[in-house]
């Protein structure tokens, strides 16, 4: 499924609005992280992924794993808007006895491919899926969305070494490089940079781009495998809290939740109110 660029940009605004609404309604954190990856998720689900909401568990489908599980509201909203389930179900997010937790659980709804929330798990899972594709002779792709802080987990680099050794070219990683982790700058807490060089040195094909530039994301994601015989790492420079001026690059919004006035102001900025 591909839709027009204009439609994707509209979807990105609407998803941001819904994500902010959910954070406000249920008083849940990680809003900045959920907003920074919206354009990547839109480019994937509306431009690239071979998935069918009517047949969500087709063995031949592309897999999308939200390894940065704390951006769950972005995933839930994108899946609902993409038609995997009714949008009304989003109202059950973080309710007692509900299915949509603050971090995703495998098959809590159609399209949710893995239980995530603890960082550094998505890539090894994706490599297993890619090996299974190789064994079964299926050419589906496995796309993993990770955060920059997540790249501090050792399993990310264990997986990076294995994927390169096995030439798992059906695997792509998109790193939402918003330069923040929970309590500090991701390049200062750990020596994360230069991130592109690190992935290249680990034997991956790399692309560096503006993670809010949907055409650039589509161009980077459209060829998986990219012909190099290597797995693909997309280092997407993003802004935490993207889309709302008073949230952008302000790490307080890792934990803060918007009050009613802030919700209204945010919706206005997004052209939704």
């Amino acid at each position, binding site marked *: 499924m591909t839709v027009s660029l204009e439609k994707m940009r509209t979807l990105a605004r609407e998803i941001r609005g819904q994500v902010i609404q959910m954070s406000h309604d249920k008083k849940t954190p990680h809003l900045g992280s959920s907003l920074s990856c919206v354009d990547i998720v839109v480019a994937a689900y509306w431009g690239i992924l071979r998935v069918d909401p009517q047949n969500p568990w087709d*063995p031949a489908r592309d897999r999308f794993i939200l390894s940065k599980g704390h951006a769950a509201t972005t995933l839930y909203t994108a899946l609902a808007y993409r038609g995997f389930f009714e949008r009304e179900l989003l109202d059950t997010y973080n309710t007692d006895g509900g299915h949509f937790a603050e971090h995703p*659980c*495998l098959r809590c709804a159609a399209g949710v*491919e*893995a*239980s995530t929330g*603890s960082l*550094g*798990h998505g*890539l*090894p*899972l*994706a*490599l*297993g*899926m*890619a*090996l*299974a*594709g*190789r*064994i*079964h002779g299926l050419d589906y792709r496995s796309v993993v969305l990770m955060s920059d802080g997540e790249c501090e987990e*050792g*399993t990310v680099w*264990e*997986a990076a*070494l*294995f994927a390169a*050794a*096995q030439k798992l070219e059906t695997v792509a990683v998109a790193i939402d490089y918003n330069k923040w982790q929970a309590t500090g700058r991701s390049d200062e807490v750990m020596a994360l940079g230069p991130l592109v060089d690190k992935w290249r040195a680990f034997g991956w094909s790399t692309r560096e781009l503006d993670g809010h530039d949907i055409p650039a994301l589509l161009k980077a994601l459209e060829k998986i495998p990219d012909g190099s015989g290597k797995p693909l790492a997309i280092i997407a420079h993003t802004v935490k809290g993207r889309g709302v001026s008073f949230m952008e690059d302000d790490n307080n919004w890792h934990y803060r939740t918007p009050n009613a006035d802030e919700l209204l102001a945010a919706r206005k900025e997004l052209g939704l109110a």
Partner: protein
Amino acid sequence: MRNAFAATITELASTDDRIVLLSGDIGNRLFDAFKEHHPSRFYNCGVAEGNMTGMAAGLAMCGLKPFTYTITPFGTTRVMEQIRIDVCYHNLPVTIVGTGSGLSYASLGPTHHSVEDVAFLRAIPNMTVVCPADVEEVRAALVAILKIDGPVYLRLGKKGEPIVHKERPAMVIGRGLTVREGSDVCILGLGNMVATSLETAALLEGLGVSAKVVSMHTPKPLDGELLCEVLSRFAIVAVVEEHSRIGGLGSAVAEWAAAREARTTARLMSFGTPDLFLPETGGQKYLRKRFGLTPEVISQEIHRAYRAAKQA
């Protein structure tokens, strides 16, 4: 046990194309036959057990039945996070195979000992824990494991363990196997200590005490029916394991008894390893002796307890 594992998994993979073997850079030559017959289903995952375990989960999500294989502590306690979340939270048919369990690799030092593994793994929801007593139980266990649609931990020794079963037992996960009948006391042996339990029973016989011996190959799920029977029928029920007394089979049996309304009359005894990292070197035989895990010591203690129970 490890040779029996390699031979059996190779054989089973010929008829079950879901089997995938992941090795953590060990078993040099051990899996040559598997690699030869099933080259697309063997991966040396390097010295990266976290990734290996996560990949196993990913494979299982796509309908395969992966087995991860490495030295016990590295494939279990080192990667508890991956076992807990990737394998058990997703409830996937991944089998974690630990080789050199207990004190099998005693002389390699405490980095290679695994006497806390059963405690850790049985605490995780969805996990089944299987500890075979000998090569025949390894073979039977593998056949039984393939029928389980969920996570399994298979706790192996090394090689050359004493034979317990003359022929392949009819193994059912969660049901203990009686390997010797007796009427006075009951010994519940775990894995490589079942042979020691049988030697203990032979010594007890010389002391006039008749001991039943059970291979409790599945600390989880426990055989409740068997426990019900032995805990009310025998004066003494003794657990013998090459595992810490904290959290092993002894703990599991005590937990089971504590959760029951029915009164159990047997006195429970627990023989396992103490709560320490031994600062001195030694082989498996030496360490067992150091920890009182010998037929001589166990039989004397059971005999003393049995006499006390009889006089009471």
